[in-house]
């Protein structure tokens, strides 16, 4: 009993669990989370994807300690140093993260928090997600697809002084959500080779500009490739009268082969992760402003590609109409990086509907609990857009691994 018991920050429920774990790792403050789905009679405690995320944290950090109660409803996490985990000799320079078949979240659920950790790592963070639970497409549980991460989220990091040329997201095998939304079988590799001591202070308070071009990816995995053209056509039908520069790439892949899983015949394989979807990215005339939209076909099927295309186009228009410089998907990333930056006030312009969501408000409260300073909110006055300018003062936590002694 030489060391005094560390002071845990206490949280309840599974809400934004990954975000809290990330903040804990970045600030180095241990956390204690209780009542994780304790009221559920069928599935109490941590879900498979949360366990996988804890494993991932364990493999890219050094010295972190996590304790999970018997029922899984309580979690204690004492963070270690983010090393990137590349020191392992045998298996190349990537950390492998296998996701179980029962995973219901898309791989972007792992990628978003992982990307927040990666700039503050000691070495490059190279993680390969594989296994029978990797869903690269967008999912009904609200995750975006990997193409959105690559084309809409990762470019946000460039504004913080992280070299975009050293970021890579390789999709080695695409996959949609499998039967009843479980599992996929994709393979995705994130290579985050650019680390910083302190992220630059961001001033993104200018007018978001006007959309000048729309790009996107239509993907069909294991279903007829003509679905791509149909989705693209439907989306263009909505978007073309508004923007002339609309180009959507079509991506067709075979469905991934995974093990069938019977004990008697271990070599038997089956195809899984069949489906299709569309993601669209709108680039604004103002630099660094990207809006995105994602619509997957539900794993139960029963929708036409035309519906998906149209829905995605409308979702994109909705996201654009919300205004601001960052969308709902990218806002947690940007705000977190701003809060960890140098002790300077950065400004970010957000749409009223973006900042008014539970996620963002919850993030602000969490940040405060972890010791970051409060946000200052004021209306953007230059036009009648009704946007809000968030002023975030950095806490200068930065990269502990790269601190100059």
């Amino acid at each position: 009993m030489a060391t005094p018991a560390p002071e845990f920050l206490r949280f309840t429920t599974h809400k934004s669990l990954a975000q809290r774990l990330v903040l804990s790792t970045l600030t180095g403050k241990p956390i204690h989370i209780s009542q994780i789905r304790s009221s559920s009679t069928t599935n109490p405690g941590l879900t498979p994807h949360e366990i996988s995320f804890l494993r991932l944290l364990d493999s890219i950090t050094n010295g972190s300690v996590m304790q999970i109660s018997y029922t899984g409803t309580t979690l204690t996490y004492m963070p270690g140093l983010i090393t990137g985990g590349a020191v392992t000799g045998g298996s190349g320079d990537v950390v492998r993260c296998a996701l179980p078949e029962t995973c219901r979240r898309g791989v972007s659920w792992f990628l978003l928090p992982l990307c927040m950790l990666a700039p503050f790592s000691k070495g490059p963070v190279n993680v390969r997600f594989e296994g029978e639970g990797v869903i690269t497409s967008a999912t009904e549980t609200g995750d975006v697809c990997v193409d959105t991460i690559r084309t809409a989220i990762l470019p946000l990091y460039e504004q913080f002084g992280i070299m975009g040329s050293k970021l890579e997201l390789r999709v080695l095998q695409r996959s949609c959500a499998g039967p009843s939304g479980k599992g996929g079988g994709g393979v995705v590799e994130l290579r985050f080779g650019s680390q910083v001591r302190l992220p630059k202070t961001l001033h993104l308070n200018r007018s978001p500009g006007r959309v000048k071009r729309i790009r996107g990816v239509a993907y069909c995995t294991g279903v007829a490739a003509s679905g791509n053209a149909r989705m693209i056509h439907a989306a263009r039908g909505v978007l073309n009268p508004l923007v002339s520069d609309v180009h959507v790439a079509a991506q067709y892949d075979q469905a991934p082969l995974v093990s069938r899983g019977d004990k008697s015949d271990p070599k038997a394989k089956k195809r899984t992760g069949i489906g299709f979807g569309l993601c669209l990215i709108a680039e604004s005339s103002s630099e660094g402003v990207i809006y995105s939209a994602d619509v997957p076909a539900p794993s139960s099927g029963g929708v036409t590609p035309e519906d998906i295309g149209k829905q995605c186009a409308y979702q994109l228009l909705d996201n654009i109409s919300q205004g601001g410089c960052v969308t709902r998907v990218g806002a947690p990333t940007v705000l977190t990086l701003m809060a960890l930056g140098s002790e300077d006030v950065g400004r970010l312009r957000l749409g009223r509907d973006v900042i008014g969501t539970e996620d963002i408000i919850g993030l602000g409260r969490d940040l405060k609990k972890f010791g970051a300073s409060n946000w200052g909110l004021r209306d953007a006055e230059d036009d009648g857009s009704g946007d809000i300018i968030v002023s975030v003062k950095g806490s200068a936590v930065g990269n502990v691994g790269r601190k100059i002694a």
Partner: protein
Amino acid sequence: MASMLGKRKRRTIEISKGDRDESGESDASGLDVQEIFRRHFEAQFKPLPAAQKSLKPVAEESADESEEDSDWEGISDDEENAVQVVEHTEAQARAAAMSKEELKSFMSSKLPKSAPLVSVLRDKAGASIEDDPSEAANLKKDLALQRLLAESHLLDSARSPTLSGNNRHKATDLRLQALGSKTSILKQEKMPMSHRKGIITKNSEKEDRRRREARENGIILEKAKMKKTSEGMRDRGVGAPGVGKFSGGTLKLSKKDISDIEGPQRGTAGRGGRGGGRGRGKRGR
């Protein structure tokens, strides 16, 4: 279906206009005087606003059409005054794909470039040559312009509108031929005989069709190149017999060969044979 509707609407308008013209010209006797005046006035100044006559044919036309196709209810009278909106959504059905380069950069594992690359010509020193007034730079630009003029037709193809990939090879070929190359680098030298035959027949078929269609349409084409007939004796090669055909260890002589060797027969040639020709003139002595 939408495009069908649009088309049909347009046609009805044309027909209605035509009807009006016809009614003006053909049965002029049936027209009242006012109509004649009106037309005269319109010819002098500008069309009068009310066109009562045109209403009727349109209604009839629409009635006819609605009988053919029950989906379409025809033009109601209210629509006559409304602005007609024609949407061309179906016409643009062909999705304009990204260019190959853009697709490559967009779908690669790297982050997409926010702005497309603008290639600036630079010389070795690193300075942009756009603003270099020297003679060498002018020559360079001249060459670039010449090449652009000569090769710009390659960029017309919708599939690859850049001078890369296939088009680059074609451009190289053009330049080589301009320098005097006899054969194209794109010509395939070795291929199975059946392929070659197929290609040749296809080409001649195409040419035939082109000529036939031109003839049918009364277009005069360039003269067809006559096929060269075989130029006498074929080259026999080194070491081959000068006469006959050597195969299977035997020299085979055809009847023609034999008659060639024997020369003209005396019986038929008569006295005029070569051997005892008159040219010697001995017999006469």
